[in-house]
């Protein structure tokens, strides 16, 4: 079963009692895979309970698919164990690297888009999909720098990855807005080029802004409500694709559950609008 084409929320353990009181308030919850790689205890008890009433998306942040070296097969095994245990409706990871040698860096770092990196990433995705026995989604990044060596646009790069590996894409609309603003390009042009037919899930999140001499620098902080221009871009995407699973991500300065629900309600109105148009 795929994720439902409804709003979803990042799962925060502090909201667990409210979530149990309001079962089904959203169609799915998303968790970071690495937080559920302990042996037992409360995290697993909560995730099992959550999965009884909701679809689950497992979102990895640690595989370093964009790394130059080989994938960590121990980590692939951990992911496989988690996926076998929970049978989540979706598994996704990032177009980024996050480890160097034996050190894991706990951030999603950028890479040049070249023929070489394309081949490496496609090999990593093939290996991942084989090891996990399922199709994965790959998320577009929020970036603050570009690389002189890049010869591919990000959208062409993602399209080609999807074509070569058969993976789906996770379209983070906030990342599109952050990246386009930071690199002084047009987010609508990015979305016009994006292979929307490959999108299996959407992410929406808040960002912080500061002013540089030549324009704004946006930081993908997941610490605020989704910004209005991101909602507008999201509506335009949904008008083209129809309803898609749409996650509100809020990982820092996490607000109370009702605030997250009001963000989800805003996404739901847009999804309903698209459903009505299609039904008409």
């Amino acid at each position: 079963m795929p994720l439902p084409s409804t709003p979803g929320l990042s799962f925060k353990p502090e909201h667990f009692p409210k979530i149990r009181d309001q079962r089904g308030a959203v169609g799915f919850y998303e968790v970071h895979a690495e937080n559920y790689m302990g042996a037992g205890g409360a995290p697993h008890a909560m995730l099992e309970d959550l999965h009884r009433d909701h679809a689950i998306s497992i979102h990895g942040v640690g595989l370093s698919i964009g790394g130059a070296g080989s994938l960590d097969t121990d980590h692939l095994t951990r992911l496989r164990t988690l996926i076998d245990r929970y049978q989540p409706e979706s598994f996704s990871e990032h177009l980024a690297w996050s480890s160097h040698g034996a050190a894991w860096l706990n951030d999603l770092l950028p890479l040049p888009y070249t023929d070489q990196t394309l081949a490496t990433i496609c090999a990593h995705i093939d290996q991942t999909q084989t090891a996990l026995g399922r199709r994965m989604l790959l998320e577009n990044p929020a970036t603050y720098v570009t690389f002189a060596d890049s010869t591919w646009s990000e959208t062409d790069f993602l399209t080609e990855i999807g074509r070569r590996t058969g993976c789906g894409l996770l379209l983070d609309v906030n990342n599109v807005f952050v990246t386009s603003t930071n690199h002084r390009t047009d987010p609508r042009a990015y979305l016009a080029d994006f292979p929307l037919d490959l999108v299996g899930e959407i992410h929406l999140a808040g960002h912080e802004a500061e002013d540089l001499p030549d324009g704004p620098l946006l930081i993908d902080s997941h610490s605020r409500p989704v910004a209005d221009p991101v909602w507008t871009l999201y509506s335009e995407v949904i008008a083209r694709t129809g309803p898609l699973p749409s996650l509100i991500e809020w990982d820092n300065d996490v607000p109370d559950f009702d605030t997250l629900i009001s963000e989800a309600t805003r996404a739901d109105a847009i999804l309903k609008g698209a459903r009505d148009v299609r039904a008409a």
Partner: protein
Amino acid sequence: MSALPDPHAAMQAQFHEALWAQKTPAGLGQEDALDRRFLVYRNNVQHGLRSALSQRFPVIERLVGADFFAAMARVFAANHPPETPVLINWGGAFPAFLEAFPPVAKLPYLPDVARLELARGQAYHAADAPVADPSALGVSDPSALRLILAPSVRAYHSAWPSVSIWAQNQPGAQQAPLPKGPQFALIARTRNFDVPVIALGAADHAVLCRLIAGDPFGQAAAGTDPTAILTLLLQHGLITKIEGDTP
């Protein structure tokens, strides 16, 4: 003949080095304010690792102060970075790091307080296990029984009053004069997933250590009254199996 250079690997090595230095790597695209842009990554990496460490060791952070902790976390993370993406397993080297870190040499109890916090984290994530039926203890001679304890059970001891230091640095705790060390405790996960730190006497701690080591009950409790430790283990559902009760 030398191997062909790998530009992807070379770029990542440079980028990684720059994360821990005060410079911006070469090879980035021509954009305004490159130093500020790169700083986002440096801040994310350092802030992310520091937050993970402070979640694991909140009392250490409280004892040394947030600013000092941040600076110390940077040194620890640069020298002992996580070896896997499973951050809940990171920090095992932190107590030994504190023992050898000169700026905290005047706080000799810190490594033991860190060991206590580490034990709590391990207990929180330890494997689940069934709870044994306590009626199996009701045999005429229980001395040959072997109690298998839950994977979350840890016997803790410190030459310092680390249990009191930890307790007095919990939110809302009352300050009181510290007793002299040593101190002992049982650290384990209870049925509702809390991980209390339960102070023990030296004798109870010795019984607990022998039970963890797998000694039969009679041998573990030799020369002492095991009622207190047995009551704690039963009360919190920490005995997973009682062996040796069938011939």
